[in-house]
């Protein structure tokens, strides 16, 4: 699980995200995997979708509800982090809405973090699926296939009185698909400096006298 988080941070960075947001990507992916949800697949999908986009096209415009992105597709990591930063937003009783959002399941770890901090149960829904999250767990109601949804026109986030639907069991080992894993590894690769003779000899320090 630690490996998945570390890889996700590097992949997000390799895809061009700032380190602070890449760390959010790592946290979110690990969180989803920890509940047996397809975090790696979604992150791989998201980073592919956002390959040529710039931050200003992906971040939420927050002057009024519903939030939207100038580029038409909100990044769930940036949006989730922004929601989490604004604890006041989460304690709004009316709930709130987002327009076009990529990989909406990636919002849930952030809503989960806010739920934990506020002690409330939250519900996140798009199309025919609802994800409930509280400090004690995650449940899903509706069409499970929609968890892998790449893009949705609307997301609704509100309070709930209790967790409903099928419980997502916690797990210690992520089982990501090979394809998604390779996708993240390719992006992570961009954060590693190519080997040169100079850096091999001097960069780590052991040099020629380490064997005695």
């Amino acid at each position, binding site marked *: *699980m630690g490996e998945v988080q570390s890889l996700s941070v590097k992949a997000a960075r390799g895809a061009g995200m700032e380190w602070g947001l890449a760390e959010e990507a790592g946290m979110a992916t690990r969180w989803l995997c920890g509940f047996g949800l397809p975090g790696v697949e979604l992150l791989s999908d998201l980073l592919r979708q956002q390959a040529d986009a710039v931050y200003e096209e992906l971040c939420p415009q927050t002057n009024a509800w519903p939030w939207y992105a100038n580029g038409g597709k909100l990044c769930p990591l940036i949006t989730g982090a922004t929601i989490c930063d604004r604890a006041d937003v989460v304690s709004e009783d009316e709930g709130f809405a987002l327009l076009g959002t990529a990989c909406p399941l990636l919002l849930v770890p952030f809503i989960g973090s806010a739920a934990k901090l506020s002690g409330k149960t939250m519900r996140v829904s798009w199309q025919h699926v609802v994800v409930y999250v509280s400090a004690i767990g995650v449940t899903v109601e509706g069409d499970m296939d929609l968890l892998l949804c790449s893009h949705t026109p609307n997301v609704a986030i509100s309070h709930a009185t209790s967790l409903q639907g099928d419980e997502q069991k916690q797990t210690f080992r992520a089982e990501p698909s090979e394809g998604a894993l390779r996708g993240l590894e390719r992006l992570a690769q961009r954060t590693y400096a190519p080997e040169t003779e100079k850096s091999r000899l001097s*960069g780590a320090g052991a040099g020629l006298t380490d064997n005695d």
Partner: protein
Amino acid sequence: MGEAENIHPRDPNLVMRLDRLGSFHQSRLSFMRQLLRRLVREKWRFEQTVFDFDENGVGHAVYTAHGPERSYSLVAFGNDLPPEKRSDRVIATEWDTAFTLFDGVPEQNDIDRLRSNVPKQEAGRVSENELTLSRANRSVRLWEHVVERLSQGAQPDIEKVIDVGYLMRTTAVYGSGKFGAADRAQIAERAEFQAPFQVEMLTVYLIRTFVMDLVEHMARKRAPETAVPLDPELRRNFGIGNSTGLGMAPFLINHPALLNAWVGVREEALCRVRQVVHAQPQDITTINTLLARAILHAAHWHSEHPAQISKLRDLRADLEKLQQHLHDFVATGALPWNALWLWVEENLSLEGQEQCASLLIELYPELVDPLTACMSTDEQMTFPIDGSMRLSRLREIVEDIYGWALKTDWAQVDAKARVWYTSEAKLEPRLGERFEEPLEPYEQPLGPGRDAALLYQALVDSHHHTVAAFLLEHPEHRHIARRAQIAARLPYAEIRDNTISAEMMPIDMLRMKLSFFGACHFDPRSDRWVRINMFQHAPFPHELCAETSDSWTLPPLPIAAQ
């Protein structure tokens, strides 16, 4: 002198400097010491269930440690390593020995699977039944000498033994889910693994046991008629060496909550000792004995690195001064240890100060040991950012925690001469020269000082009122804003020093972490590579008992001096 209430843990601006962190010594709070205290308290039982090696050291062994609820087995594989392949670097591909700590007692199919993977280390894969992955190489200097002497029926030369201090050194001990091994979360609920790095420490403790059995075995193979085992007292002079490179330095910066937990506990421990109102006569005897042993320890400590040679000179001079001071020390007044501490701060170098801190912590186990429960933490808990924080408050925090960085002239080449990166080759952490190599695009976020200076400027220029609004516009400052908020709540979370300057020595960070492991005899081989000794003088599993389990780190005094 003041009342006890006026004695507080030391200011982080004093403690969290690289030169001081690079002068830390092991203490009773260290992870190695915690392990051995537990093994005795819980009456762990050890057995060597398999030992099958030829005259070239090729074969395997299984050592099982039985705790009150669970058992763990070190599975060791030996190799006939060609000398030209022997290397401590992460990029090595073969080693003298390879190890894994198995969660339980392995069956034959486990051993077969492990034989195919463990000797390959990073190139192999282990399962959630394995807790650690490790490897060790011989000390070429000492190995042959010991085998030769023992095979002839003689003991090795004590001078040579003390000079090196180990027969093998590990070059990595991987835990926490690396290469397929069990994730930390999987074992975090087990009492025996609550303290930090206990799986790694148990692994090394068993490796030491195995290595000593192996060297005696090789001597017997060479000359079965004449070979003898090591004399028990001499045997304990062998620890397990370790060769540590840069990887540990990023670890400290990337785990601020953990860093705060370790240093915070140490500072609280020192504070509690300083607050003790009256010293008993036996406490005075104890500190004098400890000091004599520390002097012996410093005498046995060798290095060829100029910086370390200079520090050792300071340490030895400091300890002589301290011994002289204690000779005349009147401990009958109130707060005697605080009086001593204030003298130490005034009169000794950083090495002497931090050695003395470790000695003082030894005096009152009942005050200090309960603090060890606070040395583990969940880094995830400090992750969320408080977006409602006012920008003015964040500015104050930056001025407090990163004041040193705001005074640094970041336009100077020397201030940011270094760049931390990860190489493609085996994902090895490295430190490069920013202005000499094209590494900037690959820079890791390990220079919080410079990041804080950039953040500060942006905060000054910003029209926003909250951190949330600011970060939405400036995602590039999210990372450092998080760090600043963490450090505001956790005083020892941030190294308050330049980690990318031309003068920065990674060995300072390595030593800090290794001192918490319980390592001794730091021997830098460069500014970024250090040799240490682990478990030297510790009782072996068959020697563990209440009397020996906690007093072993400093060398025993010669009988006459006791």
